């Protein structure tokens, strides 16, 4: 039986590789669409970014679950692990939103660049998460210049999490009903 830690390495590499490709393509897509003349590479970048993001997102739950299982004491016993958890879910949420927006929402001009920015930030979250993994296992990573990510965590009480969830879901429902009525 494969150990959780080994499985975590495999899934993490899938997530990081896919997100890194997606982030690069989002960035290039924004650059290529800056000019007035459409660049023929832009649609390729756009498609590649979203397919890579989708692939990374599919591997993400496996990475998170195997990561939690490979920590003997749990993510709640270290600020670094807690930050890994929060960053990966933040990046996952952004990626999910970006894919949904690409599928269901209108994009032009500024909103396209904003969309690409969200995709790139999602990649940043994932790369930072992976870098924290390096700090945890090897005590060395490219983000050693960010000590606060290792030592402190911004935690909110449970009730506030419920409030955030309720607010966002309500806002999404309100928006949907408003779109149906006036759209």
């Amino acid at each position: 039986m494969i150990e959780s830690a080994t499985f975590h390495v495999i899934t993490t590499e899938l997530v990081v590789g896919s997100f890194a490709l997606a982030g690069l393509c989002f960035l290039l897509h924004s650059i290529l669409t800056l000019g007035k003349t459409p660049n023929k590479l832009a649609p390729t970048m756009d498609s590649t970014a979203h397919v890579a993001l989708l692939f990374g997102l599919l591997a993400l739950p496996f990475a998170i679950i195997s990561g939690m299982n490979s920590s003997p004491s749990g993510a709640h016993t270290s600020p670094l692990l807690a930050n890994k958890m929060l960053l990966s879910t933040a990046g996952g949420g952004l990626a999910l939103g970006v894919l949904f927006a690409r599928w269901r929402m209108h994009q032009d001009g500024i909103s396209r660049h904003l969309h690409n920015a969200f995709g790139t930030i999602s990649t940043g979250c994932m790369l930072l998460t992976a870098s924290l993994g390096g700090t945890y296992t090897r005590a060395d990573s490219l983000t050693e210049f960010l000590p606060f990510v290792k030592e402190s965590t911004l935690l909110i009480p449970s009730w506030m999490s419920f409030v955030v969830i309720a607010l966002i879901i309500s806002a999404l429902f309100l928006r949907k009903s408003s779109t149906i009525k006036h759209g």
Partner: protein
Amino acid sequence: MRAKLVLLIALVLIVPLDVRGNPGGVGNSLEDMQCGGACHGDANQNASSSLQFSLQSAGTVWVGQPAEITVQISGLESSHDLDQLGIFLLSSTNANGDIPTTDGWTILSDGMGGSNNYIEYASVDSEMLTHSWILRADEIGEKTLYVSVHHGDNTGSDAGSPFFGVSQGFSLSIEPIPENLQRLDSDYQPPTSREIGETTKLCVPTIAAENVVIEWREPAGQAYVLETTQNNQCWEAELPAALTESTIEWRAVLDGEGPQQTTPWFPLASTEPSWEANETALMLQSIAHIIFFFGLVVLVGKSKSKEDHYSDYLEENI
């Protein structure tokens, strides 16, 4: 232009970066010797360490009783520029399954607040390093222990290479304990660490002991006797709290029918209180993150209008 770009990317991928094996160490843990050869990647890249090793036990090693195993590593002259030094205590050199616990030993203390066979020194200042483990043999007979090290070295012709060294085998004879000799209960596990500001109540179970005195000291410092009371077969005493991160040592002196017996000095490390968050709150916050950031992207975006749907339909079908 495209060829130049491809060439540049290829060069970037080919040029090796600053590749160092675990420069921050891997932390004290239970490790096979395999880690010493393979933690740095390809074991063929290892250079041989010139350090010398010795290993000895303090007195007779009785079965079921704690024994202090002291390792000395010499040759750490100023010509060596070591940063991290990892030391293994091994029961064989098979490179796997060679942790002493697989050969009838129990590691009671690694001298650094844990029960590991592999420990790391962040830096070494002296020419000779002495480190002690407290082990307990669970079987009578001859046993062999090995010392192994891995480290970096920024001097000499192999500067920058991962260095690896392993000692000869050191034989230890595990003796049966005389029936009426006063001793610790063979199941006793001494505490190895605690939090700063906490006193530690010891309950030391003994067999055939008429009187027990418990002493404590700072490493190599003056010993203080603790007030010890008997509660059935358990001798109780309270170790004082530490104010900073530090290690104290304690031992028990046992009187009975046989000659006076003294246990090894058991190290007890005091560490900062461990960080712990509410697990449920963390899980909820993680779910809130997914929903919040998903909602953020969707809410700031622009919904498709009927015209957009129509143009999409035209694009797809015409």
